């Protein structure tokens, strides 16, 4: 029953995004701009080093995820739809699960565009494309549950725009370190390293999924 509700919320999110894709467009534009600005700031010689390019990409992804998640919840607040969903039986679990699923799909699209831009603009060579894909999937999976968790906590707070990055970025440090190292390992041909970091990312994703389902229903207002 809960799974069905989660699917309904996720599909509803996808339909809302298709009708008005401001979350996706702003996240993709943001990632592209960040990659360009960051590469200019560190210089072309440094920006196409695997470790630096990976760090720039995942930092941009983290900020894009904050943007997309905040936009998703703002839509609920603008339409006053949140209270109705929360009033439904099982609505609290469903909104967490549904939002995480929808955000994961959205971030996957952002990662594809942002990753392609990084590869082309920074002239990056990738030694192990399959491993890079595995790390990218694991990285996206580890970002979304944390984002939804923290945006849900800060939902009704004033100055939440500033508060969410303050709260979420320190918590994301292990995931950012793992995703950066895993991406750099895949780009430079270290298969074992890439898979180890991807495994750590999946472990973080599982921890935050369980944590989110356990405590987010209590935090949603």
């Amino acid at each position, binding site marked *: 029953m809960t799974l069905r509700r989660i699917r309904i919320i996720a599909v509803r999110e996808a339909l809302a995004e298709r009708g008005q894709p401001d979350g996706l467009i702003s996240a993709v534009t943001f990632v592209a701009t960040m990659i360009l600005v960051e590469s200019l700031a560190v210089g072309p010689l440094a920006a196409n080093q695997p470790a630096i390019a990976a760090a720039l990409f995942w930092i941009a992804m983290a900020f894009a995820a904050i943007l997309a998640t905040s936009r998703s919840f703002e839509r609920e607040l603008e339409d006053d739809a949140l209270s109705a969903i929360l009033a439904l039986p099982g609505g609290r679990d469903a909104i967490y699960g549904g939002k995480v699923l929808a955000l994961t799909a959205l971030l996957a699209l952002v990662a594809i565009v942002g990753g392609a831009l990084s590869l082309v603009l920074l002239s990056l060579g990738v030694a192990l494309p399959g491993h890079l894909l595995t790390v990218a999937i694991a990285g996206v999976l580890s970002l979304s549950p944390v984002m939804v968790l923290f945006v849900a906590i*800060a939902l009704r707070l004033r100055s939440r725009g500033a*508060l969410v990055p*303050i*709260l979420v970025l*320190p*918590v994301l440090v292990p995931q950012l370190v793992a995703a950066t190292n895993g991406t750099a390992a895949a780009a430079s041909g270290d298969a074992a390293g890439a898979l180890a970091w991807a495994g750590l990312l999946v472990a973080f994703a599982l921890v935050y999924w369980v*944590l989110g389902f356990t*405590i*987010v229903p209590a*935090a949603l207002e």
Partner: protein
Amino acid sequence: MISTAAKTTTALRARPFLGAASVVALFVALWMALVWSPPDAAMGNVVRILYVHVANAWLAYLAFVVVFLASVAYLWTKRLVFDAIAVASAEIGVLFTGLTLVLGSIWARPTWGVWWSWEPRLITTAVMFAMYVGYLLVRNLSDDLERRATRAAVLGIVLVVDVPIVHLSVTWMNALHQLPSVLRPDLSPTLDPSMLASLIAMTIAFTFLYAYLMTARVDIERRRQARVLEARA
């Protein structure tokens, strides 16, 4: 009920004794750390900062684990006393994490040659400090007592994830910071017995200090909660 906040509780009755125990234990521990324990073979007298640095770090861990336990208890029971315990412990934890960073930096200068190094233990500790400053920020942005407590409890549960990360960061990654000297996986401390005894004495003294500060801060928070509830009534 919150109206009983100002009543004399066991914790309040124990406060003067905890204060006295803290002062006595701190004097004994300082004597052991500064006079009784020997200088280190490599670092000389600089090693004496270890006793306060490690005791500070222990207190930070303890405080944030208490925040976690109080947060779970609040969500379970919805009793505001647990919220008061959580905020008191978080504030003390932030204070002692800040002191840990400062003392570590002072110790790093003569031993590593730099005030700060980008290495895992330092970064994860700084991240933990930033996380709990964020926790206190979240608390201050809400006026509704129950909503603030619920939100803070959820955050208090999530943030504790960083405590084992901080402790284990030196064993997971190549680090400039030394490996744990006491809380080791093989449970065999690597310190000289007199140094270990001094460190344990300082840790006990700091734990008394924590208990004393907690009773004082929880009392203040309970009075504040009572005022809010009375105004609401």
